């Protein structure tokens, strides 16, 4: 493969698509499939056959369009065709779409979705630019949308150092939670001594309430692979591992196919783009342990061992897989790389806030009208996300809090709805950006229950290696249970707060260090709810039997 051949593949695919009268894009991601997407696709195909349109109209199984709550979602698009989106499509609706719209030229208004609604117009799709548009199982479709052009360009025109510099200048920060500067990390690995180096994509996505990485891997697997290959070139690694959560079989299947197709086309494997650069990617399937998302635990798991974290330093950049320098980034982080190389770091850095550049994908869920997957520029306010993109709170209820950062994050109350969403602002509020779960809670939600929910999660998922986390989470959970049962005294609440501080300060890895955050943030903003649950009288300083 060289760049001329790549362009030829792209041209041929674009020509093929232009010759069609139109294409019907059907979301085939997990969410739409489970609301009947497969039947809809079959109905479309059958009806097109009956209408004799199979030559002019192509039905494409694509990835996610984001509006999961209104699935299955179908889009009609073509060279001389207004783009029309349909939601909640059933098999009968599919037949009607073929007869009335594709044959008759009249869109079916009953199922039509307003493409100019804020859900779509407020989003900026960079990482998800292909999601819902390309067929994830056809590499040609990806190549037709400039796929692998960034890799071809970098291998020919840029040194590894220049690739690292471009990523640094873009201001991209890690999307896995902590927000470490990606370019700096790449440079560390590039400069580290070691014959063998490795690149790992972290697709473990353990946060409950989050499915950004799943969607990216299912919808545009080549984007992740291209980002990994660019990273391999930049840091000097020839082997990559994609660690995918065991709960994501469809993502694994699509990634496996994508790797095979990329190797066949010579954009992965040996002598990529006729250069001296070789890069192979292997998939490793997780076996269900939240802590394995933590980088040192993940590496341990790739090496077939118990997924227990170890103290850092040494950081993976110095000593990672098999003691070799290892670059580990989140899947979404890798999804940003090809666009940065193609469009330049300045283009990227023009989006977002001063310290948080680019866009972020969120899984918008919970008590909000439009649940689904959204990509927004950094710096957008929570209010815009919840009330414009999300369409507000259903059932006439009111907004109480937004939870970000999963079990490591916190709850943000209504008075901070106008906070810009970026790494620093969310941390300042006692929450964090996290990987991108954003769960909206209405006024019926009890914050103490939510805190207990997360603590139960952390207690179960604590790997047990260090005492503060193993014992601390269990004790905090016990205290919360007593509180909810109305058996806790004011002294118990004080103990809970002390435990929070202790576990945060003393735990070995991020799991324990951040486990108290849901309690601390709900205590900060909703303390009255805790006090209302105290054993009667205890809230007003009445002596309690256990307190003695």
């Amino acid at each position, binding site marked *: 493969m060289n760049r001329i051949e790549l362009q030829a593949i792209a041209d041929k695919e674009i020509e093929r698509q232009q010759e069609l009268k139109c294409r019907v894009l059907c979301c085939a991601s*997990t*969410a739409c*499939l*489970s*609301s*009947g*997407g*497969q039947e809809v696709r079959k109905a479309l195909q059958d009806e097109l056959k009956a209408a004799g349109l199979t030559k002019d109209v192509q039905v494409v199984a694509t990835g996610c369009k984001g509006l*999961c*709550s209104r*699935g299955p979602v179908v889009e009609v698009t073509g060279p001389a065709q207004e783009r029309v989106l349909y939601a909640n499509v059933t098999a009968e609706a599919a037949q009607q779409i073929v007869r009335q719209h594709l044959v008759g030229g009249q869109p079916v208004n009953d199922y039509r979705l307003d493409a100019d609604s804020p859900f779509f117009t407020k989003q900026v799709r960079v990482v998800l630019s292909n999601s819902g548009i390309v067929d994830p199982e056809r590499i040609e479709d990806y190549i037709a949308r400039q796929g692998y052009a960034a890799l071809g360009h970098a291998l020919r025109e840029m040194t590894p150092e220049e690739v690292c510099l471009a990523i640094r200048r873009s201001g991209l920060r890690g999307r896995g939670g902590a927000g470490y500067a990606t370019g700096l990390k790449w440079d560390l690995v590039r400069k580290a001594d070691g014959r063998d180096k490795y690149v790992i994509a972290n697709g473990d*996505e*353990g*946060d*409950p*309430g*989050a*499915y950004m990485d*799943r969607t990216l891997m299912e919808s545009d697997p080549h984007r992740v692979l291209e980002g990994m290959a660019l990273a391999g070139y930049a840091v000097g690694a020839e082997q990559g591992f994609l660690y995918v*959560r*065991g*709960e*994501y*079989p*469809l993502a694994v*299947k699509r990634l496996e196919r994508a790797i095979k197709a990329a190797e066949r086309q010579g954009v992965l494997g040996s002598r990529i783009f006729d250069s001296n650069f070789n890069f192979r990617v292997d998939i*490793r*399937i*997780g*076996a*269900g*342990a*939240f802590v394995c998302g933590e980088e040192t635990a993940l590496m341990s*798991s*790739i*090496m*077939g*061992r*118990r*997924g*227990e974290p170890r103290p850092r330093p040494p950081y993976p950049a110095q000593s990672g897989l*098999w003691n070799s320098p290892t670059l580990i980034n989140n899947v979404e982080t890798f999804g940003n790389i090809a666009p940065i190389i193609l469009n330049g770091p300045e283009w990227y850095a023009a989006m977002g806030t001063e310290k948080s550049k680019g866009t972020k994908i969120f*899984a918008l*869920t*919970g*008590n909000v009208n439009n*649940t*689904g*997957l959204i990509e927004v520029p950094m710096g957008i306010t929570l209010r815009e996300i919840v009330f414009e993109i999300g369409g507000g709170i259903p059932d006439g209820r009111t907004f109480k809090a937004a*939870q970000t950062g*999963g079990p490591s994050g916190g709850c943000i109350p209504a008075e901070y709805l106008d906070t810009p969403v970026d790494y620093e602002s969310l941390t300042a509020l006692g929450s964090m950006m996290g990987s991108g*779960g954003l*769960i909206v*809670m209405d006024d019926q*939600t009890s914050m103490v229950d939510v805190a207990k*929910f*997360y603590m139960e*999660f952390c207690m179960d*998922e604590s*790997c047990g290696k260090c005492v503060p986390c193993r014992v601390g989470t269990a004790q905090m959970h016990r205290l919360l249970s007593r509180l909810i049962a109305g058996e806790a005294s004011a002294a118990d609440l004080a103990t809970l707060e002390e435990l929070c501080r202790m576990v945060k300060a003393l735990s070995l890895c991020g799991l324990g260090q951040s486990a108290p955050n849901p309690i601390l943030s709900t205590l900060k903003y909703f303390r009255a709810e805790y006090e209302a649950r105290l054993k009667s009288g205890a809230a007003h300083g009445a002596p309690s039997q256990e307190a003695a």
Partner: protein
Amino acid sequence: MSVNAPPRPKPETEHPSGDPRFKLIDRTLKRLQHRQDSLIEVLHTAQEAFGYLDDDVLIYAAQQLKLPLSWVYGVATFYHFFSLKPGGEHTCIVCLGTACYVKKSGEILAALEKEFGIKPGQTTADKKLSLAQARCVGSCGLAPVVVIDGGVHGREMANETVARVRAALAHVAAPAAGEPAA
């Protein structure tokens, strides 16, 4: 212990039982060149073939990879995916991820527990049904979500789920069957 040992030659011995499912394990062992760091993948294959990991399988994996049995046991028990007990003929997993929790999936679980008399992690006495809870199945846009025999069902109500599970147990088509996740 060196987990980064060079590929080892394939041991001559096959599993004495002649159970063809061990052949699947052998295939994975061969593909990964009997490397000790392929243990998790070997266990994945074994669990898929047998449905769970019994002592015999763990011992076989230990022998083939030349790892201490305690090491293999330690890994097998660390991960939620691996089960050392056989499951029921059908499984129903209730997602208790945050989005599902906020949408009250706990009530679904409670209804199932009441209806079938088992708790998450347990199997009915007739070995027909196993009940499980999940941390998050990543279908949060459809919360609350249950997974019955691999099929994902979104926006569930407790009585609906109970009916679906009953239908699965009776082998009749469940209402509006979801798509298998794989």
